[in-house]
């Protein structure tokens, strides 16, 4: 294998594995900047993955090539509806954010598997036929070397996610909505006295995280696993959460961290095709992403500064 082929393999598989993490961690960034800690991302991803697969299996013949994209949208909408539970519990009923998020995580897998059994009368679904597959950018793919590495047979959802990260960063730091959302996570009392509707901003944060988390789960299912079972989403939501922290609660930072975690995950898949790394026993490569997540969290959790009122309930005085 020549160097270009090796790089192309690493880049494309990194992008494939990063895409779900980028979408989900961007959601996490919005939720936490509004002041709501969302550890329920894992559960939201599960619901997104489940609903996207069901949609895909049902409508692949109707929508053809557009099916995985519509499936991602359906996953996002289901994720949004599912995250409403977290929003109502934390914002209206002032529940502890960790407990409420844990409820989502505990509830999603059994609920999804139960529905799979009810619909398909077995524990996991068939494989989908209309998956995201690989995409080559017309024109760009023909650029020598660079085209091969970055634009040929690559993951289109990852590129969408990267563009979305830039857009969301812009919205968060340069628009009125972004400023108000961050104010709800920094000092809700101050925001309230300045005429900002804190509850509305926090709802926006949580629902955006539900939508993007659902898309993240859908992208994982339709690009990587290809079907849905109880073990489809195992830790990706927590990895996205780690990317939020590693990325300092910033959309661009979360996107870059997700690329890093995606790279770690992809190594275990493509490691046997790479020189040197193929000699490392597979089991080490498989646990690597999780070990790296733990190390990153331990090393950076203390240092990076969360929004000041992240995880703090706001109770309006009356």
């Amino acid at each position, binding site marked *: 294998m020549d160097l270009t082929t090796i790089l192309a393999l690493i880049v494309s598989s990194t992008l494939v594995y990063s895409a779900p993490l980028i979408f989900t961690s961007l959601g996490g960034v919005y939720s936490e900047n509004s002041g709501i800690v969302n550890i329920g991302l894992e559960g939201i991803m599960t619901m997104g993955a489940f609903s996207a697969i069901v949609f895909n299996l049902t409508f692949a013949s109707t929508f053809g090539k557009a099916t995985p994209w519509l499936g991602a949208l359906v996953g996002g909408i289901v994720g949004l509806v599912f995250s409403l539970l977290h929003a109502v519990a934390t914002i209206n009923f002032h529940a502890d954010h960790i407990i409420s998020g844990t409820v989502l995580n505990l509830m999603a897998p059994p609920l999804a598997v139960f529905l799979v059994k009810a619909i398909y009368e077995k524990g996991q679904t068939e494989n989908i036929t209309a998956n995201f597959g690989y995409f080559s950018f017309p024109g760009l793919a023909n650029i020598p070397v660079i085209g091969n590495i970055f634009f040929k047979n690559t993951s289109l959802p990852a590129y969408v996610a990267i563009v979305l990260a830039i857009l969301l960063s812009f919205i968060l730091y340069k628009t*009125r909505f972004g*400023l108000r959302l961050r104010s709800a996570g920094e000092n809700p009392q101050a925001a309230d006295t*300045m*005429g900002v509707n804190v509850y509305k901003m926090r709802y926006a944060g949580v629902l955006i995280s539900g939508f993007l988390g659902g898309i993240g789960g859908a992208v994982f299912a339709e690009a990587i696993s290809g079907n849905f079972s109880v073990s489809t989403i195992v830790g990706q939501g927590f990895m996205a959460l780690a990317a939020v922290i590693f990325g300092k609660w910033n959309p661009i930072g979360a996107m870059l961290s997700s690329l890093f975690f995606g790279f770690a995950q992809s190594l275990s898949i493509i490691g046997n095709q790479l020189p040197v790394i193929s000699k490392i026993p597979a089991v080490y490569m498989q646990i690597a992403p999780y070990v790296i997540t733990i190390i990153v969290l331990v090393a950076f959790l203390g240092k990076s*500064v969360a929004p000041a009122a992240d995880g703090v309930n706001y109770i309006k005085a009356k």
Partner: protein
Amino acid sequence: MDEQQNVIEMANIVKDFNGFKANNGINLELKKGEILALLGENGAGKSTLMSILSGLLEPTSGEILVRGKKVNIKNPTVAKNLGIGMVHQHFMLAHSFTVLENIILGHEPTNGPLLNFKKAREEVLALSKKYGLSVNPDAKISDITIAQQQKVEILKVLYRGANILIFDEPTAVLTPQEITEFIQILKGLAKEGKSIILITHKLEEIKAVADRVIVIRAGKSVGYFKVANVSDEKLAELMVGRHVEMTLHKQPIQLGPEILQVKELKVKENRGNLAVKGLSFDIHGGEIVGIAGIDGNGQDELVEALTGLRHVESGQVKIKSKDMTNQSPRKITHLGVSSIPADRQKYGLILQLPIAENLVLKNYYHSPFSKHGIINFDKIHQHAKKLIKQFDIRTTNENLAAGELSGGNQQKVIIARELNLNSDLIIAFQPTRGLDVGAIEYIHKQLLHERNNGKAILLVSYELDEIMQLSDKILVLHDGQLAGKVKPKTTNETELGLLMTGVKKERA
């Protein structure tokens, strides 16, 4: 507009909270360009009145006229549209935001979908120039001083077009030099035609800045004066409802044996940096040693180290000639140390427990309150009844939860518990924080009484008045070190202020 026109008239304001009349017929008039002081004890109804004016509460009855027109201020937006703005006592700022972001929040100028920072910066700079509120619009709030944060708060209100400004206890957090600057700012605002209501309980500030003063007691306006025509004593008396001694009569000092000796003390704060950097001093029986300084210069760590709540890195704490460095709080208490903590609700009391149990928190485990590990509640209740009477704690009975008492009475519970231990050393940290004149007078008298009985007292306070009035010796703390050692009789607030900010260094 006529200079003498009333911009605000509040007539016969009554606010009834389920039968409790927080405001019971208050009248207030504010003229254009004047500074009106609102003086009253805690719970007198000042805050309720201002909440009504800023739209947070609706009055039960009464009339409000703004610029001669009858208005119904039913929410803060109405107040804002009438040009009424409030600068809160506890700043409402997002610390990771820039000054500019904080000011424009809620009223952001936009350029299409984007925030228009350029326009905002121009407007804010114009305002800060006009009113002498210099502050860097691009600095983060966490990087600027408290005094600058206050300027940001004022700019916030001005940015929203307010011409009636309410200040709630604005100088509580400022150093003497900053207070002087703040008073200039207030005068500048008034000169530009802004009308100002100043809520305060500091008489000297009223003298320095206000044109007129309204005294409020028990929900009623009891006096209305031109500041130039009224004495401090008269104001204090009206506010409290009885004669108040403004100056304490101190007996000459009767120095006893050395009680506390601190040598080269070094203590770290939570993040692991040194907060107390080699402090040495001693206190004898019969004297009050005051520690002056701005909040956050090592006071918390010093007091916690002395009471056994925080690890001492190096150095020595000797109490009654015994080495008590890094001993447990219980051992330190046993040896004869009483402590009045700065945060009475967090460290001084267990708010959910009844007064009686709070009164024995430091000695419930030995006779007569317990025997063989079993508590004798009869004794605890008798003890509580005795102390409630002796220390004049205003409560219906000793079974009331401490959290239901007013601030002043909560503090009396702590004072009663600590002084009843009959310790040789009393550490009083901000003993009158947030209390009104009557309660302050009471606590000061108690501390002086203990001093006259030969007790050693360490008084740590951010209130210079308190330090100056009570102390026999003043140590000024700056950045964890002794910046100066002065006598109250031969110093003044200006000198203390300079020492506190580290501008002037002096070793005595």
